[in-house]
């Protein structure tokens, strides 16, 4: 036993400023890792806080149910959208949630292909976050159609009405992009879970646990052949998921850029939306990871190394987003087009100027603190910054969408948008749904990949000589 308690040699340890924390705390063995993670699901008493949190989040999810029921009964007139602002909270929330999902895919697919071992302890719940975020995102366009029961009309299928979707519309690309994204993310997450589900099956004390986890584990026995096929399948799925990190938000950016509305129609949108999505996604992962690691004492697995790396990703993507704001503003002026030139003026001095400046503060100014190592290593500060970036990225979409629509080409058709109670209740309702699903996930599934964490241990190192 004493032998196996050696400090873990971290394969990726950075060299500079010796003392960079490792990706897993020293002293763990195969057994302790499995015990610690599976106990949260199987043996540890569910903390009272879990019930309190689930109740609170659940009541917001219930508010969502009420809001959507009322929406279907009355129509989307209960929202504040009206001409000229036909897209408002609904699309803002849709883009915000879709963006949040991107961190999960990036962590699980791209960082896997780049052999970044630090991804291992955060990928599972980041992927879960992706799924739940996509679910929340999907609600908005679905209900914005007004008749969600006819949403299948969005798919191209031979029908008696001889009706086909407009394939040149980015909205139809969205249908394909988002449904592919949801499918691949769900598959990736589930396939990643299988070996751990088998662990839970084998360790479960209750019959129900054995049966349910047993069925979910799909007969996994952990034979060499299983592992071999598993690794191949997982790598292939990672390859499939990689383009989605870029393509989904690119298509979302096309929703705006393909049209000619000033402030929407600009060529930088695709890469800048993708960077913004990853930015907000990592902010959300931090927002979730920091409390979770504190409550469940997971500091051994989600180390400062993870938090720092995520902070760095936020800094980089935040700078790309700022670059987008900058070039957009410059070219608006440079174009010499009076409508384009009006866009930054309207943002900076117009009726919604407060939100624009709040957005700049949240997304550009405050995150510059992440340049400093002291900030990146301070957990409470990181948590606050991650919350600020979440707000900032929501505001970014609001500013892009509502400001351009409220004042476009014709002064006579200018208007204002004001959210109603139901706009807010739907937004907070989806937050409630998201958090509720997350609570269920934490309670019933291993939130950290047990078998992948085990591969980080020194016991798992096989000499390659």
């Amino acid at each position, binding site marked *: 036993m004493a032998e196996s308690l050696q400090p873990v040699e971290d394969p990726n340890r950075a060299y500079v400023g010796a003392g960079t924390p490792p990706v897993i705390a020293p002293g763990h063995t195969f057994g302790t890792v499995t015990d610690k993670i599976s106990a949260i699901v199987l043996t540890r008493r569910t903390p009272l806080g879990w019930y309190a949190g689930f109740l609170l989040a659940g009541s917001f999810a219930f508010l969502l149910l009420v809001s959507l029921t009322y929406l279907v009964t009355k129509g989307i007139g209960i929202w504040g959208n009206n001409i000229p602002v036909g897209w408002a909270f609904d699309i803002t929330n849709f883009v915000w949630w879709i963006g949040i999902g991107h961190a999960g895919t990036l962590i699980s697919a791209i960082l896997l292909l780049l052999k970044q071992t630090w991804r291992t302890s955060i990928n599972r719940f980041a992927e879960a976050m992706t799924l739940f975020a996509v679910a929340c995102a999907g609600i908005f366009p679905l209900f914005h159609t007004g008749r969600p029961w006819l949403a299948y009309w969005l798919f191209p299928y031979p029908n008696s009405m001889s009706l086909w979707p407009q394939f040149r519309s980015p909205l139809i690309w969205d249908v394909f992009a988002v449904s592919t994204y949801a499918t691949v993310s769900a598959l990736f997450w589930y396939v990643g879970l299988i070996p751990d589900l088998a662990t839970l099956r084998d360790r479960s004390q209750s019959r129900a646990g054995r049966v349910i986890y047993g069925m979910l584990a799909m007969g996994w026995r952990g034979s060499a052949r299983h592992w071999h096929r598993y690794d191949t399948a997982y790598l292939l799925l990672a390859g499939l998921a990689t383009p989605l990190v870029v393509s989904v938000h690119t298509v979302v950016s*096309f929703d705006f850029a393909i049209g000619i509305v000033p402030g929407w*129609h600009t060529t930088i949108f695709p*890469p800048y939306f993708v960077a913004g999505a990853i930015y907000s996604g990592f902010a959300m992962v931090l927002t979730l990871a920091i409390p979770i690691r504190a409550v469940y004492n997971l500091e051994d697995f989600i180390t400062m190394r993870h938090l720092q790396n995520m902070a760095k990703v936020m800094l980089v993507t935040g700078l790309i987003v700022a670059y987008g704001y900058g070039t957009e503003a410059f070219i608006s002026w440079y174009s010499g087009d009076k409508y384009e030139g009006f866009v930054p003026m309207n943002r900076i001095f117009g009726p919604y100027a407060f939100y624009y400046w709040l957005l700049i503060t949240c997304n550009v100014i405050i995150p510059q603190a992440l340049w400093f190592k002291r900030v990146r290593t301070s957990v409470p500060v990181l948590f606050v910054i991650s919350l600020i970036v979440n707000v900032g990225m929501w505001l970014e979409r609001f500013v892009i969408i509502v400001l351009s629509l409220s004042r476009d080409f014709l002064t006579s058709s200018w208007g204002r948008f004001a959210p109603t109670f139901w706009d807010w209740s739907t937004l907070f309702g989806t937050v409630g749904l998201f958090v509720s699903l997350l609570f269920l996930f934490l309670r019933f599934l291993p939130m950290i990949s047990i078998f992948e964490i085990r591969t980080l241990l020194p016991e798992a190192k096989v000499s390659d000589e």
Partner: protein
Amino acid sequence: MTPLTQTADVAIPELKPMQQRLLVAGAAGGVLSLVGALLDTTQFLQSYLMAYMFWLGVTLGCLALGMIHQLSGGAWGVLIRRPIGAASRALPLLTLLFLPIALGLSRIYPWMNADLVAHDEVLQHKHVYLNAPFFLARAAIYFIVWNVISFFLNAWSLEQDRTGDFRFARRMQLLSGGGLVAYGVTITFASFDWMMSLEPHWFSTIYGVIIMGGQGLSALAFLTIALVWLSRRAPLDRIVVPAHFHDLGNLMLAFVMLWAYFSFSQYLIIWSGNLPAEIAWYLHRMETGWRPVAVALMLFHFAAPFVVLLSRTVKRQPELLVKVAAAVLVVRIVDLWWLIGPEFHTGGIAISWMDVVLPLTIGALWLVVFVSQLRGRAILPIHDPEFDEALGRIIERGAPPRTAH
């Protein structure tokens, strides 16, 4: 560390005669170019701008990749650290070579034409930005920024080699963080100034990003060729293994895809918006005799390298990878030709002998600097903090013997 130090200090005998030959070639090309400049100054400047942007792309691409590697780490960068440094030390030469462009402004850029500006509202609006003094002042700023970054990164790297002091690594990281931001801003405005303003009415927010992607690709292709060349000679023949080429091949593939992604995004958004002010640029390039070049770019700047670089075999065999890299460099020049040429030859495709001679001439002069800088230092950064991790084991064990070529 003794065997390592010896390994790194082995001089490569072929470099010296190569430098001399390149100098002769550069001088001959220079004379030819001078004749060209006298015969057809405008054509000379057009070809010169293309050749200049290409070699500037290789240089700045290397500088940026070097900074990215300082921050991200990874075995791929340790081996090419010296070629990256040598390439970025060509910046003083490129600063000097900007002179013909600065002197030829009025022949290159339509916004210099006072008559045209006087009758054009949009150009009058842009005159605050697009005028010779401000243009030159901005260029001066770009060159100061790039030269300063390159100077300090190289100086500190040399100090690190000499003293083995890890504090220099920290300094280089700090400079690289700020340096990448500075690079992003300066190259964006430089590409607006030097290339986008060739068609002064046209604008595209992604233009700078497309140029950055192209520079990264040019630099990677060049570095691949350099590494293949070095790997056939002592001391690197005992150190470079297929995995190193594999990494470079993957990065090249990533940049091929990025370039295509940026370029296609720009095209799709402008095509669907179909606004007169925006589509003119594409009409000049796709509805004229230049169309075949556009199609060729789709095929050979994206499709072909994409398919070929998916192959693991190609990426791990230097003989094959070097051919792909060379082809990528050629299409990079074609891409710049397509971006610049249609502004001078609106009627249709036009190629001049100077389009061939000038990239070769500037290239020869650039390579003289590159080779001389490569000779001046140990070929491996033995005191790089990542050195042992990346290469230590290979050097101890000795790479498997490679088949002769």
